[in-house]
């Protein structure tokens, strides 16, 4: 399955970078499921919530998507980021772990669905300036579009896009600094 996954995911991300939003959503959903499987497998003792690591990884993938070379395989890139974020999550909680570069575990990382609980990302969201916070939560939690959010907040669509971009970048950065 991995070979086919690889080709399909590369195609989706290439399309996404070329401006296809549907392809990007599809890519992120599949990556989230794969990373969730990978992270849950690696976290054997408690202390770190796998879903927090999944969200950090997705954010990192998003703000660092220019570090993927479009002619290189996408899965090694995704797993390298996931592994980095996992080690980081343990480090922040004062634990040092070795996440071995275990190709077999990655190959068999099965897509998994998320469980709901209080998230690190909510704390990061709360730390944003008010405008960015309302834009990010309007689009994510409330599921509004850019246009709807602009109308609701009484600002231009461009301003919404800028606030969203800055807000997401700030959340990603906050994760890295904690």
């Amino acid at each position, binding site marked *: 399955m991995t070979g086919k996954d690889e080709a399909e995911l590369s195609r989706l991300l290439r399309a996404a970078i070329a401006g296809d939003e549907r392809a990007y959503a599809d890519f992120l959903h599949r990556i989230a499921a794969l990373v969730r499987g990978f992270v849950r497998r690696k976290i054997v003792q408690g202390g770190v919530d796998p879903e927090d690591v999944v969200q950090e990884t997705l954010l990192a993938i998003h703000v660092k998507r220019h570090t993927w070379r479009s002619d290189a395989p996408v899965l090694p890139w995704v797993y390298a980021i996931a592994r980095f974020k996992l080690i980081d999550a343990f480090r922040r909680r004062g634990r040092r772990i070795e996440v071995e570069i275990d190709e077999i575990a990655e190959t068999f990382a099965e897509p998994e669905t998320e469980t709901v609980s209080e998230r690190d990302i909510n704390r990061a969201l709360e730390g944003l300036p008010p405008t960015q916070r309302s834009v990010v939560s309007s689009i994510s939690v409330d599921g509004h579009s850019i246009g709807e959010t602009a109308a609701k907040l009484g600002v231009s669509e461009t301003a919404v896009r800028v606030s969203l971009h800055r807000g997401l970048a700030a959340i*990603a950065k906050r994760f890295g600094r904690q």
Partner: protein
Amino acid sequence: MRTEDLIKALDADAGKKAMPMGKAWWLAAGVAVAIAAAMFFTTIGPRPDIMPAMHTMRFMSKFVFTLVLAASAFALIRVLSMPGASTRRAMTWMVAAPLLVVLAVILELFAVPQADWGKRLVGSNMMICMTFIPLIGVGPLAVFLGMLRYGAPTRPVLAGATAGLLAGGLAATFYAAHCFDDSPLFVATWYTIAIAFLTLLGAIGGRLFVRW
């Protein structure tokens, strides 16, 4: 916030484009060279007898060492800044510059009588060497560390150290045009110390500033 919700936000932000890493590295290299050149030409500048010096093997060999170091460090830092990229080949190339220096030192030891070894090693301006290589290199190092922040190095300390080697190779290339001490014995000692300082600085910078 559920992961589903996060994906909605990321998807809505998909339109924002960033410069691909490959291109950004070349741009950074150009900026770094310009900064190093400005620092070099406004302070010490090239030695007055540079034209005749260019006909001597020892003078030219310095540029071979420093340029090979800069080129191999540039190749390595590029892959280190991209997650999942294989570093093995670029790592292997990192031995090229030290190997060339060792080879040149051995040749020099054969070519020069033992009585002169000490004089060649100490040279005439090691303090200038150890001052100006870091001084010319510190601006480029800042540029390269900035690039690492823009990238996504999964080994920030190693990537920072590589940034130091790259800045050191670049700075030493300029400094070599000023320096009167062309003996590989001098280069192997004092250039190495100066570049090692930048490498240490880069590793610390990687540890402290390269978070993502």
